[in-house]
């Protein structure tokens, strides 16, 4: 564990307290010898090795100088007292070892978790990319075998495979941009209606014939946001609504403002089966996917959407109850527009 100034501060204050108490009850110097020992051990579990040794030295000096008679002078040590001071150092070393082992275990656990995530990403990726590639390849082979004669069914499947590959790659690129910290939102004024419409247009192929009701009240203020990020967030939410609900379920997108809380929002609401409470928060984690998935996916869509909202100083929330649909809301701080156009 790395030693910091804060850790030295902690050691000095704990030992000073003990020393002050020891000066109040000078006769109890034996007991204070043991209290110092406890303090050294407890501190060494929390601080770096060097700081633990410092605690042992400071305790030995403090105990001897302030408490062992004669007080306020260095006293010659009896064998028992020498042994106790020896034990201070032993406690510091043992505590230091235990702390180091704990840090090691923590690091190993994090590493295992990150490996798990990478494994999940890799497995998902392999599946998500290989499947459409397999479709494309066998469709091409089949058409080649027919002497270049195209087949309507194969062409439809090939088209779907390409759209799916495109979506996977898009989300993966966004995810990587976020992970690498390259993402710098370019905030500017956006019309919420424009954002909703371009998101819908960008997903026109995959949304197919699903009816989507768009409602934006005429007086809604402009949003201060990164238009491209907002478009991606709304697109991901629309696509989710379409993929995770039966074809007959209604989908609505509304813009609005929550004046008392000084927030504006875009909400995507569906009348699908809803999301069970235990799944709701987990859904925003990477590689977690909802139940009853028909189409594939990496489970990155919502994670990416939430990170995009947070990168803009906003938030993405979910309200849902089983059987009563789901509503995802992308929140932004209400903007203050003082510079009106002439």
């Amino acid at each position, binding site marked *: 564990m790395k030693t910091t100034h804060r850790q030295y501060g902690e050691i000095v204050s704990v030992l000073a307290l003990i020393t002050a108490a020891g000066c109040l009850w000078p006769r109890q110097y034996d007991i204070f010898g043991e209290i110092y020992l406890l303090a050294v051990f407890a501190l060494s579990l929390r601080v770096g090795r060097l700081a633990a040794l410092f605690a042992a030295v400071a305790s030995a000096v403090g105990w001897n100088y302030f408490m062992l008679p004669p007080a306020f002078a260095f006293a010659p040590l009896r064998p028992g007292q020498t042994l106790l001071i020896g034990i201070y150092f032993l406690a510091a070393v043992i505590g230091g070892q235990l702390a180091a082992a704990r840090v090691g275990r923590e690091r190993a656990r994090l590493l295992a978790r990150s490996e798990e995530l990478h494994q999940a990403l890799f497995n998902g990726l392999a599946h998500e990319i290989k499947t459409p590639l397999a479709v494309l390849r066998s469709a091409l082979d089949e058409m080649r075998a027919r002497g270049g004669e195209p087949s309507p069914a194969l062409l439809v499947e090939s088209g779907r495979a390409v759209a799916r590959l495109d979506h996977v790659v898009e989300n993966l690129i966004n995810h990587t941009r976020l992970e690498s910290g390259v993402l710098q939102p370019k905030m500017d004024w956006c*019309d919420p209606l424009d*954002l909703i*419409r371009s998101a819908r247009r960008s997903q026109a192929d995959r949304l197919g014939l699903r009816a989507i009701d768009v409602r934006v009240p005429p007086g809604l203020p402009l949003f201060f946001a*990164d238009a*491209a990020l907002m478009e991606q967030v709304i697109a991901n939410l629309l696509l989710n609504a379409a993929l995770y609900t039966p074809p007959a379920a209604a989908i609505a997108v509304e813009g609005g403002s929550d004046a008392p809380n000084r927030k504006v929002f875009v909400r995507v609401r569906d009348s699908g089966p809803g999301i069970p409470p235990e799944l709701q928060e987990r859904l925003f984690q990477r590689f977690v996917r909802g139940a009853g998935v028909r189409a594939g996916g990496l489970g990155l869509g919502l994670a990416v959407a939430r990170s995009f909202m947070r990168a803009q100083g906003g938030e993405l929330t979910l309200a849902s109850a089983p059987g009563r649909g789901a509503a995802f809301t992308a929140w932004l701080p209400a903007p203050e527009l003082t*510079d009106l156009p002439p």
Partner: protein
Amino acid sequence: MTEDLRSSLLVVDDEEALLAVMRVTLEAAGYRVREATQGRAALGEVALSSPDAIILDLKLPDLSGVEVLRALRSICRTPVLVLSVLKDEATKVAALDAGADDYITKPFGREELLARLRTLLRRANAVASDRPLRFGPLEVDLATQWVGRQGRQIKLSATEFQLLRLLVVNADRIVTHRTILAELWGPRAEGRVHYVRTYMAKLRLKLGEEFDAAGYLQSESGIGYRLVSRPGEAGEARP
């Protein structure tokens, strides 16, 4: 279409596979196709064969797309359609500001590519028209500054009309936020995108629900606006 049959294109991309596929598509659509895989070679080719339109990938091994565009614009006004990977708005805006006429994002569909090209070539061949133009229910006569719906005049403020005029004159092309700001409010308004948003919302309200819902006015996130003369045509679907 006889015009298209004789149109020649220069396709500039360093991806041989994409060049090969585009050549098949474009030749099947009746264009004459020449190719270049580098920026300098492309500039030489333009001087040599003066194509009717250029399809230019923004990522080339020798010059950047913007450098090629600047060099091109110093010698000719040939329409340029730029190809870019990713939804990188900054690069697209830079290319449009450097003189590109339109962009398309890889991977794009055949119909989309052909529709964009048709628009580009149509505009290059267009003669200034004095007659009123129609966009669905909307009639616009730039000469008399008359805007109406089913014969009934829509009253626009001077700024609103200027904005509409800018979009109509550049129909089917992107007009960047920067261009709109510079044209309507001059250099001191640079960067004040909310001026554009505010006036666009006003204009939309006046032009009416029917016109608005039909998708004639398209916002290109972070880039600008496009007035589409035929919404619903394949080329209108964005990548």
